[in-house]
């Protein structure tokens, strides 16, 4: 207890016993003290994504919300260095003033959690590594991290990487931190690669007649020299009337037919090259003008926001699954999901967002088996209130779990940081 008071006297703690270190040295002092005490802590940012992952069993909570702000932004060098808990909105705002962006297109998980925008912080993003629709073209969050600083589970301040894209100096720990759910390092500083925003965008809608055709289109789209930067399939479901209503209201655009399954693909660039690419793709996909509709930039931009906000699953009370598989198996998965689950497909056929009814939790096990058989994985992003954790939230095999335990040990030997958030024992 006395040590707790000691920490308390140094670092502000609110009435909920949450620690709010103000800078990297305070984080270091706090973790060093907790390390001595063998007392684990949950690490939170602004709580936008804390519902993802297992519940941690921790006596303490550490909020990084006071470690926020832009440290160094160099548009001409294509990087931005920020404190870990800088809100995504703030970063996007300042980048936008220089016509730049985070190309990995952050997903806004606020909609599925509470029905409104809450993009959270960059540390939260990096810790989850969930990129949006542009992923198959530009890479994931991990591909845009140039370096970081943070505190390991012993309280040591460590850093890796830098501000340059070409860097092979030592192990690339930035990659390891991406998607580690705060179990290795308490992040304090992150350097991101930024890229120029495209001048404009257009979205072409196709109305396919069967699953084979969907994947034939996806394959042709991803095989084209006329690069696309987004491709989704949104099916029309007949059984779940509520979902159909929701889908039709979310994707209500002047130039998009409702009550019908559709593929939408996005082309970005300057206006002339957008037209050129669309014409090329129409030829390659053998589409005539009567087969398609086109969303101009004023419809295209909000369309992809709605996709990336997962708005069709707004405030879902069911289990929401994120499944990633090699696209060649996609049509089989679509057939399985048809009429059983509400879902849509992103990343040109690789990423499936699937809602599993809270009363049919056992289905998650079948889906996980399918994901593995197809050479992919699934994560239960949001659990229903009845979820009993009978089926693990993450997918991991024995060998990877064993190595993960060793890696965890090397950063956080006493399992102080977010213990159990990903796997038991990590």
């Amino acid at each position, binding site marked *: 207890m006395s040590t707790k008071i000691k920490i308390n006297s140094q670092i502000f703690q609110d009435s909920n016993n949450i620690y709010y270190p103000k800078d990297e040295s305070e984080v270091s002092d706090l973790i060093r003290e907790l390390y001595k005490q063998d007392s684990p802590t949950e690490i939170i940012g602004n709580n936008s994504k804390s519902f993802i992952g297992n519940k941690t069993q921790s006596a303490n909570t550490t909020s990084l919300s006071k470690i926020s702000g832009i440290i160094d932004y160099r*548009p*001409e*060098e294509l990087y931005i260095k920020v404190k870990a808990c800088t809100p995504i909105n703030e970063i996007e705002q300042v980048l936008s003033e220089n016509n*730049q962006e985070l190309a990995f297109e952050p997903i806004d998980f606020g909609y599925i959690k509470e029905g409104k925008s809450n993009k959270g912080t960059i540390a939260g993003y990096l810790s989850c*590594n969930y990129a949006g629709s542009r992923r*198959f073209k530009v*890479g*994931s969050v*991990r*591909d845009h991290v140039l370096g970081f600083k943070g505190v*390991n589970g012993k309280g*040591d*301040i*460590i850093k890796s990487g*830098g*501000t*340059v*894209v*070409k860097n*092979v*100096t*030592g*192990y*690339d*720990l930035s*990659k*390891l931190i991406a*998607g*580690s759910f705060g179990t*290795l390092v308490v992040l304090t500083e992150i350097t991101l690669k930024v*890229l*120029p*925003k495209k001048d404009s965008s257009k979205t072409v809608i196709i109305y396919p007649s069967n699953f084979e055709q969907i994947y034939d289109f996806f394959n042709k789209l*991803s*095989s*084209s*020299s*006329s690069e696309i930067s987004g491709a989704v399939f949104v099916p029309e479901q007949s059984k779940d009337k509520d979902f159909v209503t929701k889908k039709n209201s979310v994707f209500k655009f002047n130039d998009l037919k409702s009550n019908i399954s559709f593929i939408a693909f996005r082309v970005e*660039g*300057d206006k*002339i*090259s957008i037209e*050129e690419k669309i014409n090329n793709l129409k030829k390659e996909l053998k589409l005539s003008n009567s087969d398609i509709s086109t969303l101009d930039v004023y419809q295209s931009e909000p369309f992809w926001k709605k996709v990336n906000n997962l708005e069709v699953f707004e405030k879902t009370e069911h289990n929401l699954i994120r499944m*990633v598989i*090699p*696209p*060649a198996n996609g049509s089989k998965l679509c057939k399985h999901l048809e009429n059983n689950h509400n879902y849509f497909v992103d990343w040109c056929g*690789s990423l499936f967002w699937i809602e599993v009814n809270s009363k049919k939790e056992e289905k998650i096990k079948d889906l996980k088996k399918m994901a593995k058989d197809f*050479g992919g*994985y699934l*994560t239960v992003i949001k659990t229903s209130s009845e979820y009993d954790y009978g089926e693990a939230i*993450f997918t991991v095999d024995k*060998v*990877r779990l*064993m*190595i*993960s335990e060793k*890696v965890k040990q*090397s950063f956080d030997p006493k399992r102080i940081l977010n213990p159990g958030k990903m*796997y038991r024992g990590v």
Partner: protein
Amino acid sequence: MSEIALPKIDSSILNRKSEIVKKLSKLTNIENVLSEADELRPYETDALSVYTQTPLAVVLPENTEEVSEILKYCHSENIKVVPRGAGTGLSGGALPLQDAILLGLGKFNKILEIDYENKCVVTQPGVTNLGITHAVQHKGFYYAPDPSSQLACSIGGNVAENSGGVHSLKYGTTTNNILGVQMVMMDGTICRFGGKSFDQEGYDLMGLICGSEGLLGVVTEVTVKILKTPEVVRAALIGFPSIKEGGDAASEIISSGIVPAGMEIMDKALIEATDNFSKAGYPRDAELLLIVELDGTESEVNELIKKVEVICKKNNCSSLKLSNSEKERLSFWAGRKAAFPACGAMAPDYYCMDGSIPRGKLAEALLEIKKLSEKYELPVANCFHAGDGNLHPLIMFDGNDKEQLRKTEEFGSEILKTCVRLGGVITGEHGVGIEKRELMCEMFNDNDIQQQLSIKKSLDEKNLLNPGKVYPILRKCAEEGRVHVHKNKDKFPDLPRF
């Protein structure tokens, strides 16, 4: 200079050589184990040929199970192992150790699967980088990272070094272009990270392995992403009357929102050297030469090249040529690709440095290097991957003159320290290996290095896999960090180096 501190030799292992060779011969075909002096000679060094060591034995396994059995045996008997791909690495990462087995992956030379539907190729690690592109180019696909040694370097070695190339700003390095690896750990455990789908869940172990210089495991299979070849590629060749104006133009191209496929800079010394050597037709009056390459659809490329033209004119370029054919585009690159041999023709020896700096610091870095060149009285020529900030100064000297050699070493070390001071790093693409090991403390403090070492320890507790590489063993910042080429005798003279 050929003296370098290496881990203490375990004489008990040397004494057991015949027993170890015998055992290894049971774990793979007998002809895959080399132990006679003349058989070992070709493996004594990699492309950092100034350092040589004779390995205890060379073993060339044929499949993953054999690799696993060999590592398991070495692990139980405390025998060190140095993995080796094609041996084209420039930082000594595959330098053998006298008491270690050299594990060559040369027999892993088959492409296992070409999967166009999933846009990937599953390959054994000994296949060359260019071999992958050759296998898919008839369908209009290619593998993006293109290190200059791509004709000979293996994809397994690319994973170990996280190799880049001239196109890394737009297309990334190896880590951004692979989907999965199969790897064997030092204790023989076979593991698989990633596969054909994006973004493995959990710790990104593939990301950790990529660039780990053979210290954490032996890669036995790689799944790489393939991309569709761009419809059109064009280049611009632009001369500038001053370093500052050229550097500013390069920065402005980036900040204007253009992401070139490649962007290269050469200084006056190199323009002259390469033009003499390859008759590339470069503007010899220019102080700085910029090559900008753009790719995409036809109208996209034409639009971008117009923007580049405007920016360069605004920054007072003295000459500007745009490629109007594939032949012309390749001619723009001819001189640049001959940069290293051109320097080799100018002096008995040259050192190639490899550091990264923020693009905007180029003028500052070049001026600093010029000052150092005067201080050490040694000529230097500079090429710079301006797209991604990777700088390669080439210091010319005479290796027979001991004093020049010493000065060259100091000069090189000061250049890399300058890179760090300007906000860059000590290696952009050649790796740390043994070459820059002692310079790691220029970039990292004790905590940083300890964290990396504790990862190493967690995956290779006995420190048997490629020991003595990457991390300082002298615990001082020695004057290291360059590639030495004597009398233009690069170990791989046919490979372009850029």
